[in-house]
């Protein structure tokens, strides 16, 4: 037998091939079949992309439309600031959480070897010709990769593959920090913006198309901001490393909080440019902070007071009733939101404010969160100063982000509350929570979207009018919240009873038992499922196209294929679909890879 030959037994590569690809005759068949399918579809995709029928300029020319729809040009700095804030935070976290992991020069060459080998294989397998369908239905064969072009890529990549193959065994003691290496890779991508050319279109002053060259360099309005942002990111990377070396403990708390607040701040203030009137700040915001600050102070001050302890239940119920009343009254939103925060304080203060130091810290946290909450809500609830033709500043990718981030943000606490409510021993709460979860989950998302767009206005009291985007956000929060709730309930049920008993045995109160013992363990076990559902909600956000919001998918499938002036892109929907699938794939792939690393760090799947 061939598979018992010397090559397959003695050579380590040969043995791997035999053990993994040709271990039995049926697996050999599967290997050949799958390999054939992969190569066949790869050649089909390349033929499709390089087909002269495709007009890729329809994608590149509309890139800004895809990203931010009609966001005004003069406010572009706000878009860059939004991206920049995320990048700077990223740089800071990479520097601060730098695990000190290193990679040897040989390891780098190993990676480069893989990359160049893959390129060589891909270009060798690429098809030479493709079929073009003519108007009369006949098919013409067209050459897409001439032999000299193939050689121009194949020969250098083969040479590099060979070079890296030998270099990867090089024994050099120099070790490189992985974080720095990754930052360098990112820098190389930024640097490439200065050199690469893409197929795009330029128009002269009268809107006529100039056709000098099918490939044009990337616009300076793209690469200059990216360069500045990259430099900022590097700067904050070094600041992060410095803080780590100085061992500044507070950063370990500040960075996650900043990550949490960053999207909220971006969407309510930077991206939006809210119109804030000073008299509403003085008449609503400042009284709200003062009043709730005082109430919070009193709650914290007397939380462990025994004489108040007698009235705890009536006080709690009183606040609950008050908050429901506040919610029903036509008041500014800030009061309603702060009331929820106050209820939270009422629940947590007996557990935390047990010592003088604990009370002091809780009060500081309370005041800071009051300010932050008021600030964010003032931005979010104010009108925008930006003027767009459609009256909405969210569209395209910015809308997708908005839906995905807020869907996750709002649905996670909601899901947690619903899950705890469903496992509660109080029948009323249990029935309500179970009802919400079951009703929401048993109706398709699209139906809920139609509900948001058409019926929600009928249900809301007269005079209360929400923007369509906000209606969709509320609905998405409930929809993914119900799913989250079921995942979390699964996690809760996986916690052995002994954990509850142990928490009781050391004298924890119910709040401490749930939030310090049970929930952390429950969440840890369901991280893969949660990540999966976040990815799902990111992709599901494209369904809003059905109810008339301009998300990235609707731009690609309806808007661009309708453009006739100044450049004709009529009917160019196939290019957009290819681009969008690649676009969504990049994001979900990166996301799931990150979560895999996260799972590894938490040691999941090792129990």
């Amino acid at each position, binding site marked *: 037998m061939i598979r018992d030959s010397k090559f397959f037994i003695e050579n380590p590569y040969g043995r791997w091939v035999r053990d993994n690809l040709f271990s039995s005759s049926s697996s050999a068949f599967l290997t050949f079949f799958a390999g054939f399918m992969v190569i066949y579809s790869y050649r089909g995709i390349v033929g499709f992309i390089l087909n002269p029928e495709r007009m890729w300029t329809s994608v590149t020319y509309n890139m800004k439309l895809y990203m931010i729809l009609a966001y005004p040009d003069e406010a572009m700095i706000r878009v860059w600031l939004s991206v920049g804030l995320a990048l700077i935070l990223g740089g800071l976290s990479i520097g601060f959480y730098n695990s000190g992991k290193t990679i040897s020069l040989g390891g780098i060459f190993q990676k480069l070897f893989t990359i160049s080998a893959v390129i060589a294989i891909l270009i060798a397998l690429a098809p030479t010709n493709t079929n073009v369908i003519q108007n009369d239905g006949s098919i013409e064969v067209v050459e897409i990769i001439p032999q000299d072009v193939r050689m121009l890529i194949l020969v250098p990549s083969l040479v590099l593959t060979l070079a890296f193959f030998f270099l990867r065994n090089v024994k050099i003691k120099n070790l490189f920090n992985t974080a720095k290496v990754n930052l360098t890779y990112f820098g190389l991508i930024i640097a490439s913006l200065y050199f690469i050319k893409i197929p795009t279109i330029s128009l002269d002053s009268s809107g006529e198309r100039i056709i000098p060259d099918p490939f044009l360099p990337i616009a300076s309005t793209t690469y200059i901001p990216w360069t500045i942002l990259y430099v900022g990111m590097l700067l904050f990377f070094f600041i992060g490393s410095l803080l780590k070396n100085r061992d500044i403990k507070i950063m370990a708390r500040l960075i996650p909080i900043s990550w949490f607040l960053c999207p909220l701040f971006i969407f309510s203030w930077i991206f939006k440019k809210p119109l804030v009137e000073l008299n509403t700040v003085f008449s609503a915001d400042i009284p709200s902070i003062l009043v709730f600050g005082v109430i919070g102070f009193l709650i914290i001050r007397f939380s462990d007071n025994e004489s108040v302890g007698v009235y705890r239940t009536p006080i709690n119920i009183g606040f609950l009733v*008050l908050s429901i009343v506040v919610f029903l009254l036509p008041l500014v939103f800030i009061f309603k939101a702060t009331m929820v925060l106050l209820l939270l304080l009422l629940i947590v203060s007996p557990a935390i404010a047990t010592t003088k130091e604990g009370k002091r810290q809780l009060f500081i946290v309370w005041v800071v969160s009051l300010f932050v909450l008021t600030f964010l809500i003032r931005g979010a609830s104010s009108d925008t100063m930006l003027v767009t033709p459609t009256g909405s500043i969210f569209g395209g990718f910015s809308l997708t982000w908005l839906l995905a981030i807020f869907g996750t943000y709002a649905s996670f606490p909601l899901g947690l509350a619903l899950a705890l409510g469903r496992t509660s021993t109080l029948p009323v709460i249990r029935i309500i929570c179970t009802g919400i979860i079951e009703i929401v989950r048993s109706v398709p998302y699209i139906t809920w979207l139609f509900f948001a767009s058409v019926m929600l206005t009928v249900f809301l009291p007269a005079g209360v009018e929400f923007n369509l985007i906000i209606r969709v956000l509320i609905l998405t929060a409930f929809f993914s919240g119900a799913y989250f709730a079921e995942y979390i309930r699964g996690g809760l049920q996986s916690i052995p009873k002994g954990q509850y008993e142990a928490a009781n045995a050391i004298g924890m109160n119910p709040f401490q038992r749930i939030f310090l013992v049970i929930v952390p363990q429950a969440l840890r076990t369901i991280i893969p499922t949660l990540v999966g559902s976040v990815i799902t909600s990111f992709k599901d956000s494209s369904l809003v196209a059905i109810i008339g919001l301009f998300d990235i998918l609707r731009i690609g499938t*309806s*808007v661009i294929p309708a453009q006739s002036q100044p450049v004709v892109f009529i009917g160019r929907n196939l290019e957009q679909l290819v681009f969008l699938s690649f676009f969504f794939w990049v994001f979900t792939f990166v996301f799931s890879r990150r979560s895999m690393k996260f799972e590894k760090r938490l040691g999941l799947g090792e129990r």
Partner: protein
Amino acid sequence: MSKKAIVSLLVLSMVAVACATDTAEEEVAVEEEHDHSDESTLEMVLERGFVKCGVSGSATAFSETGADGSITGFDADYCYAVAAALFGDYSKVEFKSLTSAERFTSLAAGDIDVLIRNTTWTQSRDTELGNDFGPTTYFDGQQLMGRNSDGISSSSTLADIDGLSVCTNAGTTTEKNITEGAGLVGATITLVTVEKFSEAMDKFIAGECDIVTTDGSALVGRRAVNDALNDWSIFPQSPISKEPLGPVYRSNDSMWGDVINWVVYATIIADEYGVTSANVDSVDTDAFPELGRLFGANDGELQTVMGLSADAFYNVIKQVGNYDEIYSRNLNPVGLFREGGANDRWTNGGLIYAPPAR
């Protein structure tokens, strides 16, 4: 501190919250003022300072979204024209891009003031749905497109499609028209229905169907772009359905309806006299008294009675243009021409006609 003191402090602070909210209620009261259900749309729009116009946003040449997010096209230009008449500034428009499913709900709910979204005027839409239709700005009609190599020519009729497969988008009147039309002449066809017209077109290009059908304007647009070999023909010469497209507004709102109607008529009258945005300043109003009345020469009494400024229609022509300008700017590039068609001037045998300004 005694128990009583603590409890009363808490009660006091709750009262404080209630007091602080008094100022907040004013904000809500201001918001409620915007709920004008009895007021005329005209007053509401003038007070607001801009007009909300419902368009498609993805209809080639009628209302398309450009690479910078701006909205242009034949329908969009009529939105600009309404704004020019109301405010003397064509840019005072907020567009709302609507799907065909939500357009009438959106109009009825007051999300938009006027719907100019290539909408066909039909009896049920006019009566049952609570809409009123303005003058038709574009006369469209359903046609078919086939390949010359399949024996189809522009003089073909519905009887010639016997035995062929026809692609169209599902659930629309387009589908019903072709089934009925083919049934009447006794032609047997294989109907292939897809979600969108662009998909039907992709199938037609890929050779999966022999015929594709939708409104003639869309077919002409696609032929101008995709038919490099000049192999495609559009037939029959008189469309198989009538699709008069025009502006739509809510029923029982004559003041507002008059404004929309006369903006359209003003562009048509200006076209009849050959007045364009370029020569509107040099019009001899003494020689053409109708133009004088239209552009507000005699104190613009006709316009002020409508609730507009005297020079409202002058602004429309100056800033947006007459019917012919609007038509040729948007529809000529995709291969739709006026000459000899239903959209030609009535003096040339077309249907574009306006009552006199008197």
